[in-house]
């Protein structure tokens, strides 16, 4: 995974709560498991009409937000199906940071496996950021969000922060210690099954 670097772009405000993974990637694309390219299916039913023409009123179709890497949205983002395709689509589309008052559990965990930083912020700060017209800087190292006029700090689990900053993923990280793990298991008296 690539190391997570400082990001500075405008934010894409998606003013909606309980955005479920069926909306992030509709079911017809779940069969596809190619390596990349899920970005084009992101929010498919919101972005395109029946003839697959872009819907003018959907925010992602506004050219202004084309280079935005930061999605700011409502509570319980990513609820519903556990499909990891939802995170693949957000990442492939270009989002690196998602800011919301709360996230669904499996979705939240899937983000870190794919280099996306989900940030939980108090509702009032999320609202403020939705209306931020200038660029927002996301500084993971110092856990700070900077706009032209203010700084907002955010919390993150230190292990998860390390994973993103160093571009590690859980599996490769653990497997680096394979020898030590098997050594430990030989000595361990932990019963493995009931």
């Amino acid at each position, binding site marked *: 995974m690539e190391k997570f670097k400082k990001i500075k772009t405008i934010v894409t405000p998606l003013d909606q709560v*309980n955005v*479920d993974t*069926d*909306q992030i990637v*509709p*079911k*017809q694309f*779940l*069969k*596809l*498991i190619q*390596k990349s390219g899920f970005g084009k299916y992101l929010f498919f*039913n919101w972005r395109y009409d029946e003839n697959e023409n872009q819907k003018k009123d959907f925010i992602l179709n506004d050219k202004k937000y084309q280079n935005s890497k930061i999605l700011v949205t409502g*509570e*319980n983002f990513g*609820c*519903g*199906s*556990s*499909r*990891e*395709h939802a*995170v693949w689509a957000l990442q492939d589309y270009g989002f690196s940071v998602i800011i919301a008052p*709360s996230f*669904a*559990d*499996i979705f939240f*965990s*899937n983000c870190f*496996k*794919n280099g996306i930083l989900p940030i939980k912020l108090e509702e009032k700060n999320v609202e403020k950021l939705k209306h931020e017209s200038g660029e927002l800087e996301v500084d993971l190292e110092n856990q700070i969000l900077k706009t032209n006029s203010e700084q907002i700090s955010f919390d993150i689990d230190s292990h998860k922060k390390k994973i993103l900053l160093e571009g590690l*993923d*859980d*599996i*490769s990280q*653990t*497997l680096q210690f394979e020898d030590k*793990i098997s050594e430990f298991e030989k000595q*361990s008296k*932990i*019963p*493995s*099954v*009931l």
Partner: protein
Amino acid sequence: MNIVEKILARGSGREKVSPDDVIFADIDKVMVHDVSGPGVIKVFDKLRKQGINVDKLWDSSKVWVAEDHFVPSAEKISAENIVKLQNFTKNYGIEKHFKYGMGQYGICHTLSHEEALVLPGEVYVGGDSHTNTTGALGAFACGLGHTDIAYVLLNGKIWFKVPETLYFKLNGKLPDHVMAKDLILKIIGDIGTDGGAYRTMQFGGSGIDEMSVESRLTLCNMTTEAGAKNGIVEPDQKVVDYLTSRGASNITLVKGDSDAEYAKVYEYESSEMEPTVAKPFSPDNTVVVREAPNVDLDKSYIGSCTGAKYEDLEAAAKILKGRKVKIRTEVLPAAISIYKRAMENGLLKIFLDAGATVGPPTCGACCGAHMGVLAKDEICISTTNRNFPGRMGHVESQTYLSSPLVAAASAVTGKITDPRDLN
């Protein structure tokens, strides 16, 4: 400790765990299906490129595979995914692969109880959000993403943050014509689709003692729709009998201590519950059936891990016996074993005589995959679990979630109908 804390303490080799502890737990069982399986294969390919050895699973005897979302294959991509899955299980020596067209198969969560694949006290993870279902057997059961499942397949363990537990104390027996689905819809309506987020939803009380194992499965299945990490019921003799009759042995019953702690306790009087539906487009948008909108339905769908267990089919048959459906009605038993029992006990004849179509086990239209998806503006009443926009087909279709009794009664009238109001 409560039951979840006990299971996770045992799984992580600790004396005691408390909410918010981060633990590394041994996994007892893992499930993948025809969507998460190919997803895992993709993760394995990526790891292989990074020089990581993915030639062997930690223990293929603890893994089982279901073909459910896109089977029987309606087009070639689904067919190819099934071939991929088949090669995967062959290469890794996974014997428990339930293939359609080859005896027992069905929806993954249904197989977990029909085949007694998961036992009380186990830590069970699956590549599907409704893995929560199986907590009704007294296991810690939760869904994970593809990368996490790949990790478990290689290492046999994964980290968890011990969840806080919300305890739902259910008092008394549900009235006739009211099912566990009505109760859980009421609860989700009260606490919202994130009301259980990151937490366990545990069900207990005399209402649970009175309830069948399959009804408990419905409760735990729908905890996913409240955002819960998992759902759980303390196992009792009913669970032992249920699993033993399906071939399980050596069942140990894990229960919480009498001084177990819960983050919050909710009380519900089961006897006061009413038939309830969730209106479009969210499972928490609930209303009692007698106050539901007077819409003309196009379809009634009786299927899925939530609403096509044997008990669900029996309930629908009770209503449809000697009656005719007024709208398209589909019944899709959730596994072949259920299909067979329904056939042997005459339920399928009741459905067919009523005019319904009986289909093969599959997730089918529940996830909008195939087998009767909805057209634009169509309105469906469904025993499934989600009614997000476009979930069952066209993005401008609508789904009302209900119990099998309500879905069957509504099939007869073409309107959302309380089974108590049928002539």
